[in-house]
């Protein structure tokens, strides 16, 4: 028999675990020891809680399946998340619920849907939709000694423009298991979990890869938009800063919070960064490629990648495609000449497409992000049954 939500909430869970993920306090309560143990395997206990309210997650048994296996329900800050879940589905829902609560209740940072990493004190953003390879790339780079902020969020301080850590466990899809096994990246659990849209997933504790794996706040020097293609050679194509700004704005979870400040904050980010579209292939090759191609430029942020005027200079290094750069209007006019005419173009990211297509963690309903609420039905809603969701 399944309890109602109020009945479930009023019951005292058997065990509570207080943890801290970066600056965020997360408390998990459950009447299942094994679920708490899974969580504790990834996140350290909070000995000195950070200031600010904690996120409270509750996992409670809710009857049994026809085969006699226990079923569960998950609650985040008192709201029910998802329906009745099997044991193997719990952890992804916990992760999903915590992400959702962060978006809804933590306006301190501008939150982008991106993996964020650091190397030599310089911040890297890998922005894009689910499935573009953010987490796998982050895990690969982490294994090579890069520092970690997060595999799902870029937390940008609106005043300094610096990245800040939210070092959650990396969530890796089964398709990337072999590549990470080859890098000897340890997964936190012997078993895997099931995420409804992603299939089997495993989790990596970033701190298992080194005691100093978590990055300190740092400025963003590189903005990359990765796309995984299994057979492709890694490749970088420069894009204009304005184009990067458009896509970053489209990847922003809480842009409705920042409103007037959204473009100035992200504008400052891309002004201080070099922006590329990245084709990612084999993980090891891609990581090595990034290290070899981006490191020399990091020391010289205003190099020839994006000159102020004229065409982009050809870069002879393999794997880098140059692209045409529109001349600067003011400079040309100052010379008393006319500009080469370029057919006017307007590229639009539709509101719903921007949220549903590029800026949602897997299974997240686009309406929920805009309202900051929690889905009343299935977070993987795509069936049209959810009266809140704009189904993908």
């Amino acid at each position: 028999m399944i309890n109602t939500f109020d009945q479930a909430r009023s019951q005292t869970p058997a065990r509570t675990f207080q943890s801290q993920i970066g600056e965020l306090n997360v408390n998990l309560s459950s009447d299942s020891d094994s679920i708490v143990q899974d969580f504790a395997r990834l996140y350290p206990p909070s000995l000195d809680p950070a200031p600010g309210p904690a996120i409270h997650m509750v996992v409670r048994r809710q009857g049994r399946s026809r085969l006699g296996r226990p079923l569960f329900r998950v609650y985040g800050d008192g709201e029910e998340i998802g329906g009745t879940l099997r044991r193997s589905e719990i952890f992804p829902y916990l992760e999903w619920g915590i992400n959702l609560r962060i978006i809804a209740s933590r306006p301190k940072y501008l939150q982008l849907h991106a993996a964020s990493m650091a190397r030599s004190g310089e911040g890297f953003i890998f922005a894009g939709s689910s499935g573009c390879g953010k987490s796998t790339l982050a895990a690969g780079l982490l294994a090579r000694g890069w520092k970690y902020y997060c595999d799902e969020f870029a937390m940008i301080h609106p005043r300094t423009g610096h990245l800040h850590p939210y070092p959650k466990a990396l969530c890796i899809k089964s398709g990337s298991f072999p590549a990470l096994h080859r890098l000897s990246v340890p997964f936190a659990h012997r078993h895997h979990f099931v995420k409804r849209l992603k299939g089997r997933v495993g989790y990596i504790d970033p701190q298992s890869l080194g005691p100093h794996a978590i990055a300190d706040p740092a400025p963003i020097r590189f903005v990359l938009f990765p796309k995984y293609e299994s057979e492709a050679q890694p490749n970088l194509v420069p894009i204009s800063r304005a184009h990067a700004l458009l896509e970053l704005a489209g990847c922003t979870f809480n842009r409705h919070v920042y409103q007037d400040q959204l473009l100035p904050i992200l504008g400052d980010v891309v002004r201080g960064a070099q922006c590329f579209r990245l084709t990612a292939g084999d993980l090891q090759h891609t990581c090595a490629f990034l290290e070899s191609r981006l490191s020399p430029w990091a020391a010289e942020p205003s190099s020839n990648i994006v000159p102020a005027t004229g065409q982009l200079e050809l870069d002879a290094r393999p794997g880098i495609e140059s692209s045409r750069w529109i001349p600067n209007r003011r400079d040309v006019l100052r010379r008393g000449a006319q500009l080469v005419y370029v057919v006017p173009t307007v590229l639009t990211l539709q509101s719903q497409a921007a949220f549903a297509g590029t800026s949602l963690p897997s299974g997240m309903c686009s309406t929920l992000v805009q309202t900051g609420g929690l889905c009343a039905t299935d977070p993987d809603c795509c069936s049209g049954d959810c009266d809140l969701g704009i189904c993908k």
Partner: protein
Amino acid sequence: MAVNPPIPTPRSDEIPHSEQPVPPRRASVREYELDGEAVLYDLQTQGLHLLNQTAWSVWQRFDGQSTANALTEELVRTFRVDSPTAHDHVEQLVARFTQAGLLREDDVDQHI
């Protein structure tokens, strides 16, 4: 960098007639210029738009007073382009901005 020589400004009778002011930009639209291009962010619809250099130069003249002719002349003065092409593109931009909901609706109605 190669810059093409200026082309003569067309006579006024070469410019297609369109004397109605183009509709003004909506107040809810925020703009951010970067290296000659610009991003528009509509606070009301949450829509995001990237304008290349030409579209941005035209967008800035959507003040509710400039006519399509004036915008065409501006393009012809600034860029190496003939006036019929420029006029076509101005008209297309009016339609595009209107479709994207970036212009004040009452003025759009008037313009149409």
